[in-house]
């Protein structure tokens, strides 16, 4: 896997060690005023950005922590900041 991911605890590691956890969508919505539609949107709808997105990764073969990184989905490269172009 060409992707490398920087774990906040273990540092930059091979992408093989991690499991993808989806786009960053914010905390779980409050149960009050939750409609089936808004719940479904939260769980299943994604932005599918062609570009830099913030996303969750789990260091499965490492420290076992969940964290977010920024990744350019067009190049499959990790970025330091959401604005990072190149």
């Amino acid at each position, binding site marked *: *896997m*060409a*992707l*490398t991911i920087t774990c906040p605890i273990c540092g930059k590691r*091979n992408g093989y060690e991690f*499991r993808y*956890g989806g786009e960053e969508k*914010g*905390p*779980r919505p*409050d*149960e009050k005023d*939750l409609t*089936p539609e808004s*719940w479904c949107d939260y*769980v299943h709808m994604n932005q599918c950005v062609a570009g830099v997105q913030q996303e*969750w990764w*789990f260091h*499965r073969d490492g420290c*076992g*922590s*969940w964290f977010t990184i920024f990744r350019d989905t067009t*190049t*499959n*490269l990790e970025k330091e900041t959401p604005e990072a172009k190149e």
Partner: protein
Amino acid sequence: MMNRFNHLPTLKIDVSDKIPFTYKGKTYYGTKGDTIATALYANGVRIYARSLKYHRPRGLYSMDGECSNTMMEVNGIPNVRTETTALKPGMVVKEQNVKGSAENDLMGFIDKMDWAMPAGFYYDTMHKPAKIWPVAMKQIRKAAGIGKLAPDHHMPGKYDEIFPSCDVCVIGGGPAGMKAALAAAQKGLRVSIMEARPWLGGHFEYRSSEYISRQTHHERAVQLAKEVEKTENIRVFTHTANVGVYNNNLITGFQVGKESDSFTERYIEIRANSVVVATGCIERPLLFENNERPGVMQAGCALRLANTYGILPGKIAVFSIGHDLGLETAVALHDLGLSIPVIADIREDGQDPAMLKAVLDRKITILKGWVATEAHGGKQVKKVTIKSVDGTISKTFDCDVLVASAGFTPLTGPLVVNQAKLTYDNHTNFFLPTDLPKKMYAAGRLLGFENAKSIEASGHLAGLKAAYDCENCSIADLGEAKKAMENLPGPARGTKLVTAPVKGRKTFICFDEDTSIKNIKQSIDKGFDVPELIKRFSGAGLGPGQGGIPGHNLPLFAAKYQALPDIKIKPTTVRAPLVPTLIATYAGTNHTMFKRTPMDEMQRKDGGIFRNIGVWQRARYFSKDFTCKKEIENVRTNVGMLDGSTLGKFRIHGPDALNALQRVYVSDLSKIKEGRVKYTAMCNDDGCVIDDGVVIKRGENDYYFSTSTGRAGQTIEWIRYHTRYDNWNFAVINLTDAMGVINLSGPNARKVLEKVVDIDVSNEGFGFSEYKEFKISDTIPVRAMRLGFVGELSYELHVPSSYMKSVWLMLKEAGREFKIQNFGVEAQNVLRMEKCHIILGQESEQRTNLLDIGLGFLWSRKKTGCKTVGVAALAQAEKDNTRLKLVGFKMENNGRAPKDGSLIVDDRVRGYVCTARNSFSLNEAVGMALVEGDMSKIGTRLAFYEDECKGELIYGTVVQTPFYDPDGKRMKM
């Protein structure tokens, strides 16, 4: 066997060491250092194979494996590139795609049928009427195609994989690559070199010509290689073909092991900070009639045969070349005794004056502006016609070898697979990479340099650029290296000639697919006008050589034929793997890795029949009777022991432990009491049930819980994922491997247990659904729970793994008077099915929610503010009456049980069987099934459609559950 040179300094063979092998059933001898192809050549073999389509004879051509000419079956493995595969003692070599032999192929007549097979004839013919195709296809497949692999072929050898990392990775260990590696290494960086051949040196290695006065190219290669090898921060991978380059500078390849290596082949994945590609060039094939007749070979091939392998390619050789390496080869081979009647040089002028002088000194005739137009001879070259490039004057020469080469083709594959673009360069006649990927540099011959000093200087510069990317090189150093380049000759002018003046009926642009110039013209005339389309329509470049032979010739010819004003069309795209790679190499070592429980060995001794279940190996049966009648009856009437150590076991503790549990479990765990066992379940965000188990409160903020075997690996990830925004303070520890589980079940279980433990195990002292912690013999800590998964009086003892055997033996000893027996996973499966206790994954699949399988009672609706995973979806699913429901059924008329997974049908599929068995406890066949809601009423008749039942349905009826002991008295007794 011919005499071989044994005195040349460039040789890589040891003629004193003979290696036996068999070819077509006869024993031959090669020498140590031979490839299979050179050993065959030395034994007089000239025809190595027959071509895919026309069954034309094919011989040794390039020595670099870019065509299928020398592919053979070796030790049962088809399509082995014998020209790049080292000879080993005892190898069994066979020819492929022949009827008869390669020399006398009964299918050879097809070559004359080419008129019937224009480009794309597969697409145009044999489909009207449609009935013809299946018949034709069979015949075509019989006649065409290459090696065949036996279906039961077992790949011998050891396959390994390594994942090294380095600062700079250099692809190609020739002069440029070695200079690049040295430059980067001298800056203190860790460097890896990947070299496809078994030794460093590239094209310097096999050249005996002068590099500087009193030093040959070969000597220079040796000198550089020594320097590389003694540099400690350079790691050299020889005999390692590069197969892929990916962004983020990930380089993949495979290394062929030497005899002393522990692997046959190994996959190498290098992660580098920066990369230098110095892969050099292959030769661009010259296009003329019968340009692939055995005896026709490229200059480098002829030179390496002599200099590296000590074989003079023939007696009389005509040369038709377009570069100075061709002249150099002629001079070198002439000095070794080859008779050269004529050299036809495509170039009118521009030859290296020193080379030209060397040719003339040897009184070899050189005709400038001439080219070979036809090779004569049925199976081997006997005569060659050469013509002036304009085609007006011709001469014919007898010969047994024709050295033919139009120019060079840079090996840009590693750059192209990593998204570099190719642009035509008029000076070199190369398609050169532009827009190189980040931290990636090209160097050496592939940029068009032919001057030795320029090649080395470009390598040095690329090495420094790579070092600069690693922040280990100054701008000043870079500037110096650039300046040094400016004083050296730039890229050499490339020859432009693509085809000799021929019509091209038997002029092959692609050997693998038998694609002639005529076929290319036909493709273009039909509108397939760019190389990517020509390739798909005519087949050129589709073969195992992956475009190595058509390479740059295809776009150059297509541009020429269409009289394009400038060459904007490009070579076809190359893709990884750049070199065909064995699947065994990708598979690596054979990972049969399973976890074993602490009871593994003892259960095997007790006759356990083991099966792979998830990541574990578990005892599924304890006799050959796979219905497990005895095991089941023993648990129902006596007492049995089961090893349940694979169960997931966790501790969660800390101030927010309860919050975390409340998040993932559907029950309200705030009400859980110490000393009690709480059965509950986890759902995913869709309300689908993913896990069930028990939770025990051991103290304030300290819980012990179990998960199903299959979920143990993901549980911590799951809990942390769903609490990732909360900043909660808790720790969760996986105790699955630290603790073993013994399930002691049956009416006599209490009598056995009370002999082993000191606590009161009476129904009053240790009631159903209670939890106890105690020590056996004041030493072994036990966590015990009274559960009823199998429907009998049952104790589940959680014991530290290291004490498992001790406790197991104590129970066995205590149970001896009752004739205690093992029971396996299958017996447990039947026992619990009779009780309609579910196993997730068996009574559920990915879409099954908590309500579907009747576990809705676990869901605490009053629990609010916990944002419990799955609850939102459950609330919604509750109103949905179209979902499948879990029901129990029994078979009609004392019929047998349907197979698990059978469909439940009426005029369409209405559900499926989860588990069904012939129950010994009940004397009838029962089971559980997921069916559509309207079929879940008691009394509904179910029709089962089994796999391969040929339409013969069997029938059952929905009944009350559970089947066995409906009041649950037995497990509470």
